[in-house]
């Protein structure tokens, strides 16, 4: 139904735009016609200059052999597709790529499952408890990323961290004074807890807001037909919120896949570079080892992989926007 009204609005809009256009726009000819372009000029100009040009520059860099020597002497040394060849030919790159995809999948699954369950719970709660839980969610949501990374390092601290203490008290004595940043899996575990903790509130609160838009009659009809809680979810809630699930899942994929601050701040990609995901890997190869051309090539490959992972959603969004505009 909403699609129809939007369509109607889209059809009506250009006509009203032309028909009832305020006098200044239609009356003064070329001068007035330039107004919208002047208005968007600053935004378009800075975006093209500072983002568009950087994308181009990134592409150019990826075809150059640019190390410390070339950097200092300002030499441009073109190497064709060598950087790409080296990256794609190295087992390290594929290991990091596989790791990034797995890391993203695990995080997004956890975020969506916990976020949706929390959102559905919000919808079931009474006013007071809902307010309480929302307060907790908003606190986690608003907490600045950088502050959260230091707090999680403290929570998971080896000597005086609360997490080790609690696990020990709960009977898992091997975890007393456990060194979380000592191994690949445990470091990823901390990063995942951090990212899930930060992302669930967004999903939960939005899902709750979205459920309030579902007409009550649908649930009444479903329960008259004898549908239980699960059946109500699969036959009413899920179909109704399908666009929401789709959009949120893909936004989280984008967000998790390119997350740099959390991965870098918790353990700088360590131990032994075993927790580097693609953005951190590009950074370490490019800036750390000063192979800037190589770093640029990896960053292009990262973008390509991200585009491939989200192509389905991006196509949908662009198509939808195009129809709506």
């Amino acid at each position, binding site marked *: 139904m909403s699609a129809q009204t939007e369509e109607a609005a889209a059809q009506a809009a250009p006509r009203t735009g032309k028909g009832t256009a305020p006098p200044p726009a239609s009356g003064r000819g070329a001068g007035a016609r330039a107004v919208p372009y002047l208005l968007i000029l600053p935004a378009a100009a800075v975006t093209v200059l500072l983002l568009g040009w950087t994308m181009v520059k990134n592409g150019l860099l990826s075809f150059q052999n640019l190390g410390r020597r070339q950097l200092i002497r300002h030499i441009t040394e073109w190497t064709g597709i060598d950087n790409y060849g080296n990256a794609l030919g190295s087992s390290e790159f594929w290991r990091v790529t596989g790791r990034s995809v797995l890391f993203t999948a695990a995080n997004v699954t956890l975020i969506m499952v916990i976020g949706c369950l929390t959102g559905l719970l919000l919808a079931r709660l009474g006013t007071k*408890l809902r307010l309480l839980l929302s307060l907790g969610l908003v606190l986690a949501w608003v907490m600045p990323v950088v502050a959260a990374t230091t707090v999680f390092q403290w929570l998971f601290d080896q000597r005086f961290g609360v997490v080790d203490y609690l696990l020990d008290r709960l009977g898992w004595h091997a975890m007393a004074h456990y060194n979380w940043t000592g191994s690949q899996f445990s470091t990823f575990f901390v990063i995942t807890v951090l990212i899930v903790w930060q992302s669930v509130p967004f999903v939960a609160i939005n899902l709750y807001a979205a459920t309030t838009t579902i007409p009550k009659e649908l649930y009444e009809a479903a329960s008259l037909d004898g549908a239980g809680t699960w059946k109500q979810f699969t036959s009413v809630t899920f179909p109704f919120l399908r666009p929401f699930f789709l959009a949120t899942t893909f936004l989280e994929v984008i967000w998790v896949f390119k997350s740099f601050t959390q991965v870098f701040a918790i353990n700088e990609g360590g131990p032994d570079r075993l927790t580097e995901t693609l953005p951190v890997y590009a950074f370490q190869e*490019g800036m750390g080892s000063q192979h800037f051309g190589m770093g640029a090539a990896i960053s292009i490959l990262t973008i390509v992989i991200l585009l491939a992972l989200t192509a389905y959603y991006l196509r949908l969004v662009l198509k939808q926007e195009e129809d709506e505009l």
Partner: protein
Amino acid sequence: MRRSLFGRVWPGATAVVLFAAFAFPVYWMFATAFKANKDIVSDTPVWFPTAPTLDHFSKAVAADGFWTFVGNSLTVTLIAVALSLVIALLASFAVARMRFKGRKSFILVMMTAQMAPWEVLVIAYYMIVRDADMLNSLVPLTAIYTVMVLPFTVLTLRGYVAAVPKELEESAMVDGCTRTQAFIRVIFPLLAPGLMATSLFGFITIWNEFPMVLILNKDPGAQTLPVWLTGFRTTFGDDWGATMAASSLFAVPILVLFVILQRKAVGGLTSGAVKG
């Protein structure tokens, strides 16, 4: 029904547990920041700061260059947010109120730009800024941050401008206002809440930005709070009290802003965020 007691209790119980899980890290940050050192380095955690102290805060504030970082963070954040608001306001007015060729492409460019993977473009930015001989300066940083939050600002403000009834503007023009006057006198005041909500998002993004400043500004004199805070071990060693005090100081402006702008902000953030 046998299930009913359990059925009534579990949502509430789960809600309380979840509340604790989400609120605890924030609570623990503030609690640690106020605790005396012997309560922080104790084998059994002290759950409440029984004898609150401000020692850690004075240590954090007295840390090398703290006020420089605060000044730098505030400078880049406020200037970039203000610039992006002005630039976006112009563009969003054109997009929401005028029909012109290229309007659609402009919106699509903004939507694409909003998804730009800044984190992986840092190397290219480094080369560009280095070639311009402007490393360790706040100017390129501010410019990049402006563009970083601009697409979101344009797309969100577009919604707010469109929500102001066209009739208000038209009747102002019938009463003899020019279009510019109508905008300043009629639309702008109505946009104020939208502007504030949008700026909150920009503020949070820039206040938190880490990879860009990490790469562009190696000189401590030109760094911002996120670099200082993530490198807390160099400043404070294993002094968790001071680290948590520093984190609290970093988080408080955002928490305060959020509380002030709460209602508008949640609506604004969600509507903009879901739009992607």
